[in-house]
C-alpha cells in the first residue's frame, strides 16, 4: 500500500489545513483570526471543563449520577444545559453577523463572505436543532410525567439514548469550529449548492450528520412522549383532565414522529448523492432539486410548530398560575392545539412560493397557511380572557408571557402577509422574512422556554431564582428584540436581501446600526440570565421552597416536594377533575399521608445511552472525514450496546416502602409546620413553598 493510500485509510481527508489555527497562520486576515479564535474557544473550553471536573472531583458523579441516569428529571435538566450552552454560541454568532452587516456598507467588514455564510448556517442550525429542540424536549421531559402523575416516561432508556444522540450532534457542531469548517448552505442546506460538485469539502457533511443525529434523537423522543401521555397517566387523569402543557406536549410529540422522517430522508438522500454519486438532487442525469426542497419543508413546517406548541403550553400554565385563575376556554384550547397540529402538515409549500409552481397551487397553500392563524388567534384570546379580572402577579415568567402576547401577534400578522403569494414574491429572501420568523421564534419559542425555565426551576432545584435579575433580563430581552428586528422589516421592504455579507445601499446604514445595538442588548439579556442563575445559587438558602408549591399552582407537579424524590410520587394520585392539585387544596385533601406505602421500582442507571450517543458521534465524525474504520466501528459499537443490553435482566432496583414512607412523612411534617404565604409574598424569602388557602367563596 502506498503512503498516500495508507494515510487515507487511517485519517481520511484530515490534514493540517483542517485546523483553523493553521489557516489563520497562513492567511492572517481578520476573518481567519476570528475563526481561529472561535476554534481556540472550543479547545480552551474543553480543557477548562476537564480541569474543573478533575479539581472538583466531579468525574464520578458526572458519569454515575448524571450521564448514565435514566431519570426523566435529570435527563430534562441535561437537555436544558445543552440548550444553554448552544444558545450562548449561536447568540454570539448572531451578534457577529449583525456587527458585520452594520460595518459592511460599502466596506469589507470583519468577516469574509465564506465565513459569514458559515455563521448564518451554524446560527440557524444550532438555534433550531441544538437550542430550541433540546430546550423544549428538556422541559417536556421534566414536567409532563409530573403533571400526569407518572413516575417516569414510558421508555427511560430510550430517553437517555435520545439525549445522548442530541448531545453527540451538538458535539459534532462544536468540533467543526476546531477541526474543519461548517456548511455554507444555510440551515436548510439546499442542493445543488450542497452537492459534491459544488461543495466537495467537509462543510455540508458536518451539517448532514449533525442533523441526522439530532433528528434520530428527536423522533425517539416524540415516540417516548406520545407513549407516555397515552399510556402512563394516573388513574382518573382522562385526556380532558390533563394540564394544557401536556396537550401541547402530546401534539408536539405527534409532530415529531411524523415530521422528522422527511428530514432524515432528505439528508440521507443528499448524503447518497455526495458519497456514492447518486442523482437525487444533482443538476444532471435526472436529478431534481425540487424534490429536496419539497422534502425539507415537509419537515420544516411542522418543525416550527414543534418549536412553538410547547411554548404555547408553557404560556397557558404560566398565565393561568399568575392570573390566579383557571385557564379560560380549556376545550377550545385543546381543539385549537389539535387543529394547529393537523393543519401544520398542509402548508409546507409556503416556504417556496417563488420556486415555480402554478398560481393555483400557490393559492391553495396560501389559503391553508392563513387558516392556521385562526386557531392561534383563538389561543391568544383565551389567554387574554384568562388574565381578565384575574389577580395578576407580574413575576418574570408572567412578564415574558405578556410580552409574548403582544409581540408574537405582530410576528403572526407578518406571517399572514407572507402567506399571500404575491406579497411573498416581493419580500421572499429579504430580511423581512428574517424579521418575521425571529418575531415569532424569539417572543414565541424563546420567551416561552425562558418563562418555563423560571417557572419550574424552584420545583426542580428547591429554591427560587432571583426575581430582580429576572426582571432585568426580561427588560433586555424585550428591548433588545425590538431594536434588533423591527428595523429588519423596514430594510426588507426597502429591498435588502438576507444572508448578505456586504451591503451596497447606504440608506440601510441607520437601521443596521440600530439592529446591532439591539443584538448587543439581547446578548445582555442572555448574560443577565446567567447572572440570575449564579446569584440565585449563591443565595439559595434564603430562597428555599422545600414544601414544593411556591406559586400556588394547579397541577400535580406542585403537589410533591421541591426538589422531588427520584420516584416523583410516594403514592400515585387519583384525580377527579382538571386542575387536580388546585381542587385537592380547595377540598382540604392536599398534604395528607397515604393509607399505605408500597415498594417502588425504579430503573437502574445504564451506560447504553452515553455509549450509543458517543459511538454515533464518532461514526458521524468518521463519515465527515471519510475515515472508514472509525465510522464502521462507531456504528457497530452503538448497535452492539443495544443488543447487549437486551440480554441484561437486572435493570431495576427497589426503593423500600419504609424509606418512601419516612421521606413522605418528614415532608408532610415540614409542610405542617411551615407558614403558608399569600400570593403577594411569593417573591420573598418568607415563601417556603406553601400557599395560603383560598377564601371560601373563591374555592366553591
Amino acid at each position, binding site marked *: 500500500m502506498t503512503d498516500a493510500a495508507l494515510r487515507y485509510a487511517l485519517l481520511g481527508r484530515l490534514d493540517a489545513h483542517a485546523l483553523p489555527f493553521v489557516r489563520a497562520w497562513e492567511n492572517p486576515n481578520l476573518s481567519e483570526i476570528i475563526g481561529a479564535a472561535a476554534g481556540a474557544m472550543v479547545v480552551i473550553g474543553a480543557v477548562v471543563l476537564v480541569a474543573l471536573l478533575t479539581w472538583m472531583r466531579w468525574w464520578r458523579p458526572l458519569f454515575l449520577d448524571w450521564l448514565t441516569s435514566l431519570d426523566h428529571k435529570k435527563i430534562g435538566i441535561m437537555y436544558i444545559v445543552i440548550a444553554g450552552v448552544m444558545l450562548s454560541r449561536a447568540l454570539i454568532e448572531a451578534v457577529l453577523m449583525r456587527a458585520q452587516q452594520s460595518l459592511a456598507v460599502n466596506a469589507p467588514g470583519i468577516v469574509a463572505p465564506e465565513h459569514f455564510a458559515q455563521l448564518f448556517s451554524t446560527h440557524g442550525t444550532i438555534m433550531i436543532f441544538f437550542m430550541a429542540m433540546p430546550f423544549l424536549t428538556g422541559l417536556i421531559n421534566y414536567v409532563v410525567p409530573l403533571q400526569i402523575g407518572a413516575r417516569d416516561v414510558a421508555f427511560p432508556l430510550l430517553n437517555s439514548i435520545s439525549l445522548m444522540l442530541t448531545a453527540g450532534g451538538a458535539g459534532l457542531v462544536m468540533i467543526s469550529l476546531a477541526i474543519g469548517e461548517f456548511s455554507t448552505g444555510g440551515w436548510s442546506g439546499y442542493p445543488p449548492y450542497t452537492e459534491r460538485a459544488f461543495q466537495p469539502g467537509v462543510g455540508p457533511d458536518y451539517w448532514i450528520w449533525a442533523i441526522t443525529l439530532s433528528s434520530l434523537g428527536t423522533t425517539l423522543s416524540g415516540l417516548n412522549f406520545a407513549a407516555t401521555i397515552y399510556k402512563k397517566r394516573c388513574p382518573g387523569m382522562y385526556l380532558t383532565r390533563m394540564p394544557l402543557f401536556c396537550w401541547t406536549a402530546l401534539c408536539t410529540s405527534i409532530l415529531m414522529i411524523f415530521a422528522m422522517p422527511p428530514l432524515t430522508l432528505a439528508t440521507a438522500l443528499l448524503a447518497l448523492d455526495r458519497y456514492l454519486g447518486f442523482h437525487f438532487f444533482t443538476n444532471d442525469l435526472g436529478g*431534481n432539486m*425540487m424534490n429536496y426542497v*419539497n422534502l425539507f419543508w415537509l419537515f420544516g413546517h411542522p418543525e416550527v410548530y414543534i418549536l412553538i406548541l410547547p411554548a404555547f403550553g408553557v404560556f397557558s400554565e404560566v398565565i393561568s398560575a399568575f392570573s390566579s385563575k383557571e385557564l379560560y376556554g380549556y376545550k377550545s384550547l385543546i381543539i385549537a392545539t389539535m387543529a394547529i397540529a393537523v393543519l401544520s*402538515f398542509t402548508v409546507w409549500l409556503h416556504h417556496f412560493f417563488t420556486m415555480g409552481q402554478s398560481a393555483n397551487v400557490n393559492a391553495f397553500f396560501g389559503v391553508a397557511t392563513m387558516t392556521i392563524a385562526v386557531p392561534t388567534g383563538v389561543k391568544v384570546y383565551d389567554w387574554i380572557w384568562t388574565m381578565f379580572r384575574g389577580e395578576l402577579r407580574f413575576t418574570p415568567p408572567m412578564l415574558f408571557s405578556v410580552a409574548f402576547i403582544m409581540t408574537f401577534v405582530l410576528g403572526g400578522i407578518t406571517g399572514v402577509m407572507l402567506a399571500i403569494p404575491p406579497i411573498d414574491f416581493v419580500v421572499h429572501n429579504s430580511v423581512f422574512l428574517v424579521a418575521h420568523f425571529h418575531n415569532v421564534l424569539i417572543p414565541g419559542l424563546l420567551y416561552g422556554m425562558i418563562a418555563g425555565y423560571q417557572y419550574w426551576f424552584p420545583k426542580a432545584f428547591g429554591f427560587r431564582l432571583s426575581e430582580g435579575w429576572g426582571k432585568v433580563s426580561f427588560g433586555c430581552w424585550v428591548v433588545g428584540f425590538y431594536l434588533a428586528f423591527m428595523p429588519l422589516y423596514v430594510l426588507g421592504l426597502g429591498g435588502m436581501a438576507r444572508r448578505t455579507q456586504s451591503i451596497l445601499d447606504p440608506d440601510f446604514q441607520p437601521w443596521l446600526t440600530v439592529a446591532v445595538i439591539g443584538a448587543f442588548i439581547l446578548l445582555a439579556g442572555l448574560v443577565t440570565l446567567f447572572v440570575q442563575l449564579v446569584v440565585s445559587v449563591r443565595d439559595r438558602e434564603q430562597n428555599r421552597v422545600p414544601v414544593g408549591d411556591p406559586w400556588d399552582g394547579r397541577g400535580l407537579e406542585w403537589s410533591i416536594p421541591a426538589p422531588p424524590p427520584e420516584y416523583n410520587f410516594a403514592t400515585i394520585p387519583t384525580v377527579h377533575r382538571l386542575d387536580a392539585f388546585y381542587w385537592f387544596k380547595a377540598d382540604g385533601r392536599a398534604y395528607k399521608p397515604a393509607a399505605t406505602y408500597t415498594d417502588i421500582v425504579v430503573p437502574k442507571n445504564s451506560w447504553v445511552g452515553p455509549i450509543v450517543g458517543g459511538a454515533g458521534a464518532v461514526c458521524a465524525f468518521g463519515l465527515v472525514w471519510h475515515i472508514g474504520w472509525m465510522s464502521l466501528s462507531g456504528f457497530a459499537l452503538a448497535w452492539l450496546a443495544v443488543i447487549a443490553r437486551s440480554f441484561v435482566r437486572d435493570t431495576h432496583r427497589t426503593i423500600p416502602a419504609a424509606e418512601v414512607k419516612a421521606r413522605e412523612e418528614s415532608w408532610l411534617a415540614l409542610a405542617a409546620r411551615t407558614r403558608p404565604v399569600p400570593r403577594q409574598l411569593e417573591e420573598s424569602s418568607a415563601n417556603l413553598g406553601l400557599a395560603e388557602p383560598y377564601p371560601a367563596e373563591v374555592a366553591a
Partner: protein
Amino acid sequence: MSGQHPSKGAVLLKAFGAAALLSAARAVSGGSGAPRPDRAGGLSDGAAEKRRDLATYGIGYALALGLTGLAFVVVTWGWAAGTTALGIVFALALLQAIVHFRCFLHIDLRRSHRDDLQLLLFSSLIVCLMVSGTLVVLFNLRMRMM
C-alpha cells in the same frame, strides 16, 4: 427463472407449493401444540382458540396469495392495460395490506384496539397528505418546465 413473464404453469406451481406448505404447517402446529387440561373443560377452550388463531393466519395467507397472484396475472396476462391496470394493481395492494393488518396484525374495530387503529388511521392521513402533496407539486413543476 425465465424472462419477464412467468409462464402460467410457474404461477400455478407456486400457488400449489404455498398451499402444500400451509397444510403442512397446520398439521405440524396442530399436532404438537395440544394444551394441558388445567381447568374444568379447559382442554377444548385452548385447542379451539388455537384453531381460531391458526385459521386467521391461514385465511390471511390464502387471501394475500390470491390477491398477489391476481395482481401479477392482470399485468402479465394483460387483463387490463395502462392506467386501468395500474389502478387495479393499486386497489389489490390496498386490499392485501388490509388483509395483513386484519389477519397478521390483528387490528380490528374492537375497543381495546382503538388506540392502535387511531394511530394507524392518523398515520395514513399524514402519509396521504405528504405523498399526494409531493406528487401534485412535483408534477405541477414538471408541467411548467415543459
